[in-house]
């Protein structure tokens, strides 16, 4: 198992390097000018100096390697310094990935935006799993019952209706017509009392539910299929024959075995919901990393966009790895070595 994990980890390094190269090359070879948004009164020679200070006159491969070094060596070193208070090497002059638009380090911007995204997206995923698992279990246990039929239809709705439409529908119904929930997520809200806590909960309900519904519909399908696979197995009959209560059979024996593939599906879904959150954050004006990406794209802030996109890619590779390893750990029948 350990050897398999190490091998997978080593294989993912060239994959990530290739992805980082694709992302960098795509953004770099595209026609865009970091000084295009500056005032027209700046004379051309000053403009040229600004370009030089941004490192735009170096050859492509040098810029790529510099960016890689900044992202993979300098930024982690900085983080370690911040957490521990140590000083490693020449930390004053260490180059960081700087945003063109705000002139501040990209990683600081991302760290600033991370909590909002994690709260909304993370909470929605937890809610999705909490909704999906019971629905999947009941639909499988009572296959072809009215509950199962409705569940199938609703989950089909869930992954057919795009989140930007459910989000807007929720706003129309709950904010405009009923006036129960705020339509804009207020990040400046400080939770220090019961009232502000309730306000936080109320503003989180809609973005969380929109994402949760979309994810729950997929997870519940997997849960149902996995339960159906297990319910007809011999060990279930054995358990029943031994006189166990139906509850114990289903919830202890079948559910635990059925959760194995579902857990890997849940792990695989984590990076995609970060991508999907881009849209939800846009609808409810949550200023998380998805909103940061959109701002970066609109202001042609190449370093910011490169870094964010690469972080998304790292998440995908990482959770693929986690899903594979989890499968091996949870299911003793699977041996990688």
């Amino acid at each position, binding site marked *: 198992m350990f050897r398999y994990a190490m091998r997978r980890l080593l294989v993912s390094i060239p994959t990530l390097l290739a*992805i980082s190269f694709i992302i960098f090359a*795509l953004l770099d070879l*595209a026609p865009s000018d970091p000084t295009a948004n500056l005032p027209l009164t700046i004379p051309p020679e000053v403009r040229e100096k600004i370009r030089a200070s941004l490192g735009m006159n170096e050859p492509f491969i040098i810029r790529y390697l510099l960016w890689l070094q900044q992202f993979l060596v300098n930024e982690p070193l900085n983080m370690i310094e911040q957490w521990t208070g140590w000083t490693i090497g020449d930390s004053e002059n260490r180059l960081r990935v700087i945003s063109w638009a705000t002139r501040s380090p990209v990683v600081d911007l991302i760290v600033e935006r991370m909590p909002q995204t994690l709260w909304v997206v993370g909470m929605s995923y937890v809610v999705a799993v909490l909704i999906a698992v019971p629905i999947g279990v009941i639909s499988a246990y009572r296959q072809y019952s009215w509950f199962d039929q409705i569940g199938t239809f609703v989950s089909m*709705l869930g992954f057919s209706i795009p989140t930007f439409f459910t989000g807007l529908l929720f706003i129309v119904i709950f904010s405009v017509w009923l006036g129960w929930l705020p339509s804009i997520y207020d990040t400046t809200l400080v939770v220090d009392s019961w009232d502000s806590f309730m306000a936080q909960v109320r503003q989180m309900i809609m973005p969380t539910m929109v994402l949760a519904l979309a994810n729950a519909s997929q997870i519940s399908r997997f849960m149902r299929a996995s339960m159906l696979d297990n319910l007809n197995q011999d060990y279930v009959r054995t358990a029943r024959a031994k006189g166990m209560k139906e509850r114990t059979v289903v919830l202890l024996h079948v559910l635990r075995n059925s959760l194995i593939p579902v857990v890997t599906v849940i792990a695989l879904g984590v990076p995609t919901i970060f991508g999907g959150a881009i849209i939800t954050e846009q609808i409810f004006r949550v200023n998380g990393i998805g909103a940061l990406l959109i701002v970066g794209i609109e202001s042609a802030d190449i370093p910011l966009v490169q870094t964010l*996109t690469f972080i998304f890619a790292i998440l995908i590779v990482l959770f*693929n790895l986690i899903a594979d390893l989890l499968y091996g750990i949870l299911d003793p029948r699977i041996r990688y070595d």
Partner: protein
Amino acid sequence: MTDATAGAAPVAQSRHRSLWGDVWRQFRAHRGAMAGVAVFGFIVIAVFLGPLIHTVDPQYLDLRARNAPPSWAHPFGTDNVGRDIAAQVMAGGQTSLAVGIAAMAISIALGAFIGVLAGYFKLLDGALMRLTDLFLALPILPLLLVIILLFRDTLRSAFGPEGGIFLLIVVVIGITSWMQTARIVRGEVLALKEREFVLAAKSIGTRERRIITRHLLPNVLSPILVSATIGIANAIITESSLSFLGLGFPPDFPTWGRLLYDGKDFLTLTPGRVIWPGLAISLTVLSVNFIGDGLRDALDPRIRGR
């Protein structure tokens, strides 16, 4: 076969049964799929033939009838500059459906091509599958946004404002969504090429190109058809997501996603601007998904016999 059974056979098989006849019968038994066909057919007809009945120009500005509620002249009402929403939804639908089908065609062609190459030629297998894994690890939505932002202006000047953006979005969605098809096709081809009929074809000296086009491709048609339906649904959703983020089609050449994006700031005033295009996207995707479900059942010989 003995004479007795040969005499009975014509009675039992009074009608000739073909493979596609069987598929069609199984497909018709799937209620969801038939409903999907009906709804999808209705949407296609409404979008392409509707403008012949409701002959209002979608770009005509009727400034005296701004934000009008639904009426006989404007069944879905009008927007903030007096354009007819029904005409816009129909015009937008033409583009959205065209994008969905064209992007699906690219992704299916690419996926089938790469899948067959990887499955049939052992030399290419490793490299092509690494490429597929690499594409699967790319963060698609952020990359699509970036590509569109960066190349929009270049293509717009090369192919005109409408053709350029259409080409860009279709190609970009196509080349970022072929991976699942390629994997499925590769798996099928790997199993098929060991079968006797391929061996027989080889033994009589059939060229490899002909084995692929004549013997392999028809046999992988059913998984390709199923992923084609999923491909349409995904392409429509991706395109409308891009347009919804303001990075897809321009406002004078709207799609359903763009109409939603433009209408979302007028939610309280004219909710129809959001509800109609949103409903159109959802119904299209839902019906296509149901069709895919029915096709999967109908094309699966293990289920079909029952």
